[in-house]
């Protein structure tokens, strides 16, 4: 028990010693990992991409292109079209035509079969998609290969089956498609977010105009190839690339019936305001500042793994990241020490290396934003701790970071950083933990760690979050609804509940 009585000061003063008895494993000097690079030979990226409209790639009307940068090398991978009003008009027109003439008329079961085909095509070309996802967005190949792409395929497979079973989803009502869905997705899980949006939209009989994020458009454009290969009727899926400006053209387009957006709360509010007074249905999947609550009776080693996964998965570019650790006072020092030790073993580097745990920050802009927050945290009086790993010289990389000595009012505790940065607060009673967890305008996801079953359900029911992970974190599944309370969004994606945003119910 002696180790639990250490004061915060002692923890602070002890420099990390890889050889000290408290640091259980020393991977750094004794064990080295050979390079395990994923070959990119099989992944084909064109030099330039147009928009995918009406079943073909089309040059942007104004002829403007944006570079797509590999954030791990800062080299240009390709260039993508910048969508203007004319491009968006063409895409919406194509989607409307496809909706009226074909997609709303074919049998639901046939509609479903097209979506099944898309699922299969993603599976067949999964590795290629994983490589491009890692090159374009900086995420470790281990994650794009094992999480992003398989889950994207699973989403199409899941929703495909719903197409001809909608009568069972809404008791007492008949579900009808809405028309044209405008969908705007973020850069953290590019193909997966596309799947979350496109799969339910198509299964419920809507057609789509999708805009991927400007830093990560390549897998969406590769997906356009799959739509062609699948023989999907022209115009059912249209992809327009560009910046937020292009996104706002979609939001404000008069011939769109539904807007689905995933991104920041700030932009979500702007979108809701833009849609004021219109009949467009909308879903918003926004920011978060997820509390991860560790009780004294938690299995500590598992919890430490869970904390690491909660905040460092995908470089912390996760809206539901467990970015606020709330640890019960009695075990705080032990947890913090174990966290530091575990952080030392994380490999930060080449996203295409199969051993890499943390890849590149998605863009220069995000890299700068994270660094501003690190500086801010220190200026606010927090104690910063970073792992001692060496970072590649090229590219945008960030060390895994902890902040202790923070209070509820610190900006690094209140604002979404969207990077590998964890703040640590303590609590004494469950009530205090719950109150701290809920003291935020966000409400997307949270974790609860305890060995006591009744406590899981009590705490789980009191925290105001759309997703509660009990003794686990950052799991996703197409059957599992996802979405936030409060300022983290509106509506759910995934599961039966994820159909509702794409239908109107009639008696």
């Amino acid at each position, binding site marked *: 028990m002696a180790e639990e009585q250490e004061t915060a000061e002692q923890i602070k003063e002890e420099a990390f010693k890889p050889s000290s008895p408290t640091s259980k494993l020393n991977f750094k000097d004794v064990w080295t990992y050979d390079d395990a690079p994923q070959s990119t030979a099989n992944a084909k990226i064109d030099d330039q991409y147009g928009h995918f409209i009406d079943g073909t790639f089309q040059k942007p009307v104004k002829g403007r292109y944006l570079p797509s940068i590999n954030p791990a090398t800062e080299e240009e991978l390709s260039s993508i079209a910048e969508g203007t009003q004319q491009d968006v008009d063409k895409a919406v027109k194509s989607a409307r035509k496809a909706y009226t003439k074909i997609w709303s008329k074919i049998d639901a079961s046939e509609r479903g079969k097209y979506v099944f085909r898309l699922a299969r095509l993603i599976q067949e070309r999964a590795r290629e998609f994983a490589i491009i996802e890692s090159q374009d967005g900086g995420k470790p190949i281990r994650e794009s290969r094992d999480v992003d792409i398989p889950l994207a395929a699973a989403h199409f497979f899941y929703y495909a089956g719903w197409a001809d079973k909608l009568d069972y989803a809404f008791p007492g009502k008949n579900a009808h498609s809405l028309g044209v869905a405008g969908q705007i997705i973020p850069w953290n899980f590019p193909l997966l977010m596309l799947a979350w949006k496109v799969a339910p939209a198509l299964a419920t009989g809507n057609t789509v105009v999708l805009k991927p994020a400007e830093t990560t458009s390549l897998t969406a454009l590769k997906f356009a190839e799959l739509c062609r290969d699948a023989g999907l009727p022209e115009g059912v899926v249209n992809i327009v690339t560009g910046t937020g400006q292009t996104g706002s053209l979609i939001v404000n387009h008069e011939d769109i019936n539904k807007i689905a957006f995933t991104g920041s709360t700030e932009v979500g*509010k702007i979108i*809701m305001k833009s849609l004021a007074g219109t009949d467009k249905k909308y879903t918003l999947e926004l920011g978060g500042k997820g509390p991860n609550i560790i009780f004294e009776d938690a299995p500590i080693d598992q919890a430490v793994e869970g904390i690491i996964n909660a905040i460092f998965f995908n470089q912390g570019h996760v809206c539901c990241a467990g970015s606020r650790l709330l640890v019960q006072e009695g075990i705080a020092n032990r947890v913090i020490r174990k966290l530091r030790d575990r952080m030392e073993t994380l490999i930060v580097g080449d996203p295409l290396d199969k051993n890499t745990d943390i890849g590149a920050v998605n863009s220069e802009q995000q890299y700068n934003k994270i660094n501003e927050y690190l500086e801010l945290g220190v200026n606010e009086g927090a104690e910063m701790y970073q792992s001692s790993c060496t970072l590649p010289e090229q590219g945008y990389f960030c060390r895994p970071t902890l902040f202790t000595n923070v209070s509820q009012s610190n900006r690094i505790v209140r604002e979404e950083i969207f990077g590998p940065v964890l703040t640590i607060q303590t609590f004494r009673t469950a009530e205090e933990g719950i109150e701290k967890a809920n003291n935020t305008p966000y409400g997307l996801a949270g974790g609860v760690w305890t060995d006591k079953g009744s406590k899981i359900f009590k705490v789980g029911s009191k925290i105001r979050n759309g997703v509660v992970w009990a003794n686990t974190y950052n799991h996703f*599944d197409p059957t599992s*609804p996802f*979405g936030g309370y409060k300022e983290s969004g509106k509506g759910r994606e995934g599961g039966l509940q994820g159909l509702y945003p794409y239908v109107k119910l009639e008696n």
Partner: protein
Amino acid sequence: MSDRIEVLKTYKTYIGGNFTRTESGRYYKVYDGNDEILANACQCSRKDVRDAVVAARSAVEGWSSRTAYNRGQILYRIAEMLETRKAQFIEELETIGYKNKGAKAEINDSIDRLIYYAGWADKYQQVFGTINPVASSHFNFSMPEPTGVVNIWAPDDQPLLGLISVIAPVIVGGNTCVVLASEQYPLCAISFAEVLNSSDVPEGVVNILTGYREELLEHMTTHMDVNAFFYTDPNIDQDQRKQIDENGALNLKHIIRKPVKNWQEEETQSPYFITEFQETKTTWHPVGY
């Protein structure tokens, strides 16, 4: 020998379980079907809205923690209390122009509507909750949970049935609410508060204000501690509708608009009115030894 002078009721507001006058001290006149003055109603202010939201917020924890069975019984109790006061409400509706038959129909429908939603209290979770067969060793389920505090504009017509039809689906799901009564016919809303007050509804669960919609629109839709705004006016002015949506965007309130012309229609009661004020919470739990 003179005729007995009737004792007239003072109509106040209902906030946090108390009948209080508006803090602003203002009033507006309410007329009967023959343009004769019936009473002075409170012309509530921004401060009244804020006080009511505080009362509603304080009541969320307790009300949402009640068992579904208990909430159902309390809604049933409201119906029982209303049944015993039928005569009073018929008389009140007649003073504002209802014929006796119409007044009877309205009170009967109001009582039946409460029974309808009382019955849903412990069922909508079963119909709309799901167990999700995830492809990993986790037990995963999704349940509806109340969104919190709901601000409501009660319908202007059918001042009793409309009022009950918008309150019941909100509170049966564990939410609390602040309701602005029909502007033209606010009196039976305050009489209904007397029913609530004697029906075991905890204080703060339903708060009823009277006053001018246009004046209170901003305060009811911009309040940052409110989770949803609910209105049903089918003829709402487009500028007002836009303003409601825009104000809602300040804290991403759910803006729920259900245009209803006649609350006696069958489809104006539905479990989908309950789910509009529910959030879905999904819980993951590992499965293993």
